[in-house]
Each structure stands twice: as C-alpha cells, then as structure tokens.
C-alpha cells in the first residue's frame, strides 16, 4: 500500500493547515453561510490545496477545454465511517472512487468537482487532513479538482463529513467498453485479493473492533486501465468492485450483458486475515467491499498480455483468471467450490450483517 494515502497524517511539504486554528478550531455554521468565513475557508483551504488555474478563476462554473468528441461523466457520494481507516480515508476514497468509475469506461480522467457537506463542530484539522489527502490522490491520478461547494449542517445531523465528487474524462475514439461487448468464451481477470477494504473498515467500526495489520485495498485504477487501453488488448468490459464485492460486480455484468459467468473459488485470492475476519463475523468474502480491485473481461487470446500489465501495477498479487463467460445465455453467475459443486451467486438484499448463527 502506498504511504501517501495513509491516514493523511503527514503534512504536504510547505503546506500547513491555513485556517488559524486558534480562531476556528472547528467548523461553524458560518463556514457554509456564504459570508467572510466561507470565503476564507475556500481560499485558504480548498484553493490552496487543490491549486489549479481553473479553480482559481472562482467562476460559478469551470470552463474546461477538451480535445475529444466523447466525454465520460460520473458522480459518487462518500459517507464512509470512520473517516480515517487503515490504508485510506474518505478523501482518498472520494478521489479514487470517482476516478476509477471513469477509468472503467476506458476514459482518461481529467477533472473533478468536490462538494463538501460538513457537520458543524467538525475539527478544522480533520477537514484539513481530508483535503490534503484529496490533493495527494488527485496529483497521483493526474486529475484537477476544478469546482466545489461547501455546506455546513447542524451538529448531530451528520457523521462529520460527507463528500460528493463528480468526474469527467475523455474517451478516445474507437473505444467501446461495457457489458454489451461481453462475448461467450471471454475470460474474467481480477487484479488481486478481494475483501480487504470492507474488513479493514469493519475492524475499526464501533462494536466489532479487532486487531489487524490489514489495510484497505483503496487504490487508483486509471493508470493501469490507460496502459491496458494503450496496449491494444481487446477490452470488453471493466468493472471496479466496490460495495457488494466481487459477487455483486459480476452479477451486475451478467444481468446487463445477458450472459452466464462462471467462476471458480480456487482461483479467487482472499488473504488469510480477511478470511479469519469473515469466519468469525459470518460474512462471505465474495460479497465484501473492495476499493482498488477490478475485473477485466476480455478474449482469452489477450489475457496473458493483460495479466502482465496488471501485475506491473499491482505487483503484490498475481492477476488471475477466475472464470469465463459460458455458452448459455442465462443472466447468471455460478461458482464452482472446492468440492467441484456449483452454486448460483445471488445479489444480497442489503449490506451483509455480521451474524452469530
């Protein structure tokens, strides 16, 4: 795991929290009130951290230049608790998550907007750590945060801090990646172990705490996708695996594409400690959240080339073919277990809850 996303404790060189802490150690309602305090927050914190010419213009909207006829756009809101967790925080998540969604369409992510909903009383230092983390994540993925918004809500009506990010990117002509392109005989590749993000968060959640050295898999995927696209491998479908885990990601593809995806348990890597946590909490790692894992569905002929590229970016785990698109045109995902028997993977009703029986 890269250290620059870790908990955001380290300060960016030459940048100190710019809001005089002695004056405003906590977020006040006035910081979202449209007056002097809000302006100070924007100028001294957001502009300073996200520093770019477009944002500096402080227009009502960012005017962006792009040299492409195809634009990809996505939005996502981040409400993770706790705000800081082993391997990441809400800030890095808000940048990587949206950038990853763009990447999954084969787009090159360029710009983000950031909307902050702050709870009155949030320590200014906490906000600053999150903003620093976003700055680092944006730099790492080569995107600029060019528009933003801040609202402050009353104490007790939020969980400290929510972030919405919207992202745009350009798609080169000729690129058409999505479930509709999935073909019979395609193979399913995954870029590493699964379930680490969900368990890392659970480990620090109130009431379920356990000791672990586990870190979230939270990671940007734009670079690896760019290299895959540039390499000329025939990419049929990409999907980043977030809530609902590997199972939900594949089930969504199977349903949109109308295909039968068959995977094998023995090729799916789950780290021993993730397994241990799943065992005691009664969870199925196939359904546990990830934030830096994605599946690539592509023709078998290109799979070695794709694997090599993925492994270059994610050297800690071998990229693996975990399954295949089968002949039947039933929209279903099946799993072969260690006994060789098959079962159907179904979407869960909601978030998996720890169970005792």
């Amino acid at each position, binding site marked *: 795991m890269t250290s620059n996303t870790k908990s955001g404790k380290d300060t960016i060189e030459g940048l100190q929290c710019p809001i005089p802490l002695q004056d405003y150690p906590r977020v006040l309602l006035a910081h979202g009130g449209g007056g002097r305090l809000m302006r100070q927050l924007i100028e001294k914190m957001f502009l300073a951290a996200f520093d770019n010419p477009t944002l500096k213009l402080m227009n009502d909207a960012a005017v962006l230049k792009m040299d492409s006829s195809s634009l990809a756009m996505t939005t996502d809101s981040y409400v993770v608790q706790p705000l800081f967790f082993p391997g990441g925080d809400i800030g890095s998540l808000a940048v990587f998550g949206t950038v990853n969604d763009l990447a999954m369409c084969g787009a090159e992510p360029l710009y983000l907007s950031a909307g902050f909903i702050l709870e009155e009383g949030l320590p200014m230092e906490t906000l600053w750590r999150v903003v620093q983390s976003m700055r680092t994540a944006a730099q790492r993925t080569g995107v600029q945060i060019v528009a933003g918004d801040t609202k402050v809500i009353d104490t007790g009506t939020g969980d400290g801090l929510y972030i919405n990010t919207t992202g745009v990117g350009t798609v080169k002509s000729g690129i058409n990646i999505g479930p509709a392109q999935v073909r019979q005989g395609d193979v399913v590749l995954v870029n590493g172990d699964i379930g680490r993000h969900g368990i890392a968060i659970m480990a620090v959640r109130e009431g379920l705490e356990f000791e672990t050295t586990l870190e979230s898999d939270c990671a940007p995927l734009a670079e690896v996708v760019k290299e895959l696209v540039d390499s000329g491998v025939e990419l049929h479908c990409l999907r980043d695996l977030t809530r609902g885990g590997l199972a939900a990601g594949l089930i969504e593809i199977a349903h949109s594409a109308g295909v039968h995806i068959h995977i094998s348990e023995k090729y799916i890597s789950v780290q021993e400690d993730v397994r241990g946590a799943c065992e005691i909490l009664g969870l199925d790692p196939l359904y546990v959240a990830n934030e830096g894992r994605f599946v690539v569905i592509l023709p078998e002929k290109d799979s070695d080339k794709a694997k090599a590229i993925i492994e270059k970016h994610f050297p800690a785990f071998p990229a693996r073919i975990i399954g295949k698109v089968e002949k039947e045109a039933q929209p279903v995902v099946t799993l072969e277990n260690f*006994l060789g028997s098959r079962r159907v993977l179904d979407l869960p009703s909601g978030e998996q809850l*720890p169970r005792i*029986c």
Partner: protein
Amino acid sequence: MKYLDEFRDAGAARYWAEAIKRTVTRPWTVMEVCGGQTHAIVKHGLDQLLPDEVTLVHGPGCPVCVTPVELIDHAIAISLQPETILCSFGDMMRVPGSERDLLSAKAEGGDVRLVYSPMDALDLAKAHPDREVVFFAVGFETTAPANAMAVYQARQQEVRNFSLLVSHVRVPPAIESILSSPQNQVQGFLLAGHVCTIMGWEEYEPLIEKYRIPLVVTGFEPVDILQGVCMCVEQLEQGRAEVANQYTRAVNREGNRHAQELIQQVFEITPRLWRGMGTITESGLGLTPAFRDFDAAQRFPVEKGPTRNSPDCISGDILLGLKKPHECPSFGTSCTPDQPLGAPMVSSEGACAAYYRYRNNGKVYDLKH
C-alpha cells in the same frame, strides 16, 4: 486456518461421500437440527454428493427462525421508547415482526444497535448510564453461557440500566416434539455440535431409549457433516440406535461444566413458544428469580397488540422437516429474502433463505457440464 482447512478438504469430503454410498442399501431420512449445518450443506452442495437413498431434512435449529413474532414485536416496541437502546445480533435485524422488522424500527427513530457479543451490550450500558440498554438474548444452548455471563456481570457490577429480552430455546424438547409427531418421517438426527459443546449428550440418552433412533453429535465443516451422515447411516443400516460423537475434538459426554454452572445460576427451564411450532414444554430458558430484575419483558411491559404471522407461510412444516422450502407455493414468488413472509427466508441459517440463495430462487439450472 488450522482446524478449518483440514475439515474442508475436498479429498476427505469425497471420501466420506463415497463411504456413505458404500454403506447405504435403502432409503433413510436424516435431519440436521442445526441451522449452521443447513447453511453449510446448501452452501457447499453437500446434499448433491449424497446417494439418492439419503434424504437430508432441515430442522428447527435456527434460533432466529423460531423466535416468536410476539417477542420481535416486543423488541421493536422497546427500541422505539425514547430512553432505550436495543442491542441485537445482526441475525435478528431483518426478521419480520407483525408490522415491521428491527431495521425498519431503526429507520423510524428507534435506537437499534448491532453487537457481536452480549458483553458489548453490557459495555454500552456502562458507557450510557442515562439510557436503558436492552439486549435481545436469542439463541440455543451455545449462546446461553455468553448471555448468562452478561447478566451475571451486570449484577456483580451493579449495572442497573442493563436488561435482557430473553428468547432462549433448548434442543432436546424440540427433537422430542418432532419425534412424537404422528407425521414424523425423521429416522436419524445429526445433533448440533456446538450445542453439545456446552451441554454434552447425556440429556439426549433418554431419547434413544424412548424412540430407538440414532443421534450423531456432528461438527460444521463439510468433512464433519459428511462423516456425521455416514455414522448415522451406518447405525440405521445395522439397526443400532446410539448417541455417537463425530465432533470429538470439541465435545465430550459431560459438556462444559463451567458453562453449565453459570447457565443454571442465571436461567431456569420454562415452556416456550416456537414460531411455527407452538408452545413446547421445557423448551426454553427464562431468568431465575435472582436475576428477574434484569428481565426486559418485566421492565418494559408493552401492550400486546394482535400479532400477525403470514397465513401463507408454512414455516412450521419446514421446521418440522415435513416440507422442503421449494415445496411451499409462496417460495420465490410472494416470499423472497427482500419480502420475507417468515423468518426462515431471512436468517442465513433459515432453510428457505439457504435454498433461495444457493439455488437461485428455486429455479434449478442445469449446472453440470
């Protein structure tokens, strides 16, 4: 993971499946009592490895499934009172009461918290002395020592704002209720290994004398379950009826005396209403007089409204092993995990949910290639 991986070994599992095939000569119906075993059987497709002669039916061993609607309604009513925090295991959150489940009560403003252990609920009570913390104590004998300890410690430490809403059930009377039914088809039982870890198997021996039926204390991993089935079929084929122990690494005849002692201090045997099965004498545990101050049912009496069990739900027949989930007309149509009519469709141990999840709502695809 040690003691798990060895018992999930494919070669060993196939070995026992073969051993069952070699042993069996005629049809037998075996019930696994424990929902954890049901879950493992369906998840790993163990029933598919069995010869046609052996039919596994799924028993009432899911504490969530047998908790009566009245108590779920009571828990919901408690959670909606302003000064209370209702704590529960994750399993109970989505079980339908008459009108709604605990998650819906939370959405309506009830303070409902998910805990891993009853001791976490006790800690919560200590952390919030101004609030009443109620733990929804469901479970079989396995969970009784933990719940007993929570209330014992509450008394020791004088944590007065802690109480238990008790819905504890015992396995032997449930087995007896199944065996004494005129419709009974079960010829042998796999006993729940973790229940026996606590209770041992002495209390099952009278059942052998009375009903002449093999009982095999069985663990939870695929190899355990297949070996347990094999040991049961062997007895059936040879006309023997004994308590046998497959789960020797964790269970002995006496059980866990230390746990039993505290259970006896805190709980006494009571009649209990089982969802779908009616009231069974001596089948429950309630707090003893010494701990009655910690009884949430007394502390938070609620007016009992009319309870509503769905008339279309045949969970009673499912729990008694008389019907399989897919034989229910509502299965997968008007009853799904998103819109459950009864508890067995909710709990991951519930036979209906297990069938739905692992059999894709009953539609059986030809999965063989």
